[in-house]
């Protein structure tokens, strides 16, 4: 299926959870903020939230420093 990740269209397998997508991209799930179709997804829902064809996803991966 096709999803839009941070503004770019990509092809991904189906089914795919947010936690699996994060793992595919080597992203630490404790350091990300995720918005799916403009809706905030809480970290405790990453494993149970499945993506659908056409979804638009914004993932912010925070790095340390401040």
């Amino acid at each position: 299926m096709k999803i839009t990740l941070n503004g770019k269209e990509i092809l991904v397998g189906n089914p795919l959870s947010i936690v699996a997508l994060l793992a595919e991209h080597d992203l630490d799930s404790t350091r990300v903020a995720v918005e799916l179709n403009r809706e905030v997804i809480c970290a405790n829902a990453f494993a149970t939230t499945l993506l659908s064809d056409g979804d638009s996803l914004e993932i912010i991966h925070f790095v340390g420093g401040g």
Partner: protein
Amino acid sequence: MNIRLNEQLIATTATTLFALRDAHQPDADVLIVNGFPVRADQPLGEGDQVVLIKRGAVPDAAEMEALLTARHTPGVHQRIKSATVGIAGAGGLGSAIAIALARCGIGRLIIADFDVVEPSNLNRQQYFIDQLGLPKVDALRANLQRINPFVKVAAFYGRLDHENLPQVFAMADVLVEAFDAPDQKAMLVENWRKAHPERPLVAASGMAGFGTANTIATRRVGENFYLVGDETTAAAAGCGLMAPRVGVAAHHQANAVLRLLLGADPVGDNHG
């Protein structure tokens, strides 16, 4: 003759600097005419700008407000003054953001941090060597009071978490994420976006090292959510946090806040 005295336009019959001083502020010992300090008396002309200062005297709230109102475009100061901004974290980002906003004359700041000032902080954080060991929120409040005693500062000394975060920043019109740890940044973003999607959030990620400052930018992530930084350069061994880039990121954040309060798009080119 009309002249601008201490940022206020006044009509005066005084034709010389000393006459003006004697009429308005006889104890002034620093006299500035059109931007230059002067010692001798001199004639004044229409439209001259004069500032009279008594060394060591602190302006009262009304005088301070007049100074800021005059400095800012009309209408701007009122909006800044009525705003409350929350700043989560009082380290390199938070201390600089708080100072920038206090200098702008922000009405209220809510600052929160669990840390004390350590020697290693002084390379980039807005504290002084005689403040080592003080809780950062206390040291920052003291520094803000020295800059603008009329900014109201509420301080929370402790760790922010999912439970207390919405309460600590309940009054904030805009929240600034100024943490150091990436998991804390993520926690705050999730929490605030859920609790107050209608209230803007300005977060930061990626400002370590001494690479070019031009990669630090402000971007809009989503509705009411802005992110500052290069988004890649983490603090690490060999790539420490340093005053210039952290300061650039902090002031991007402060400017985004200012623009939001003035009804301007933080990433647009309008001037509000």
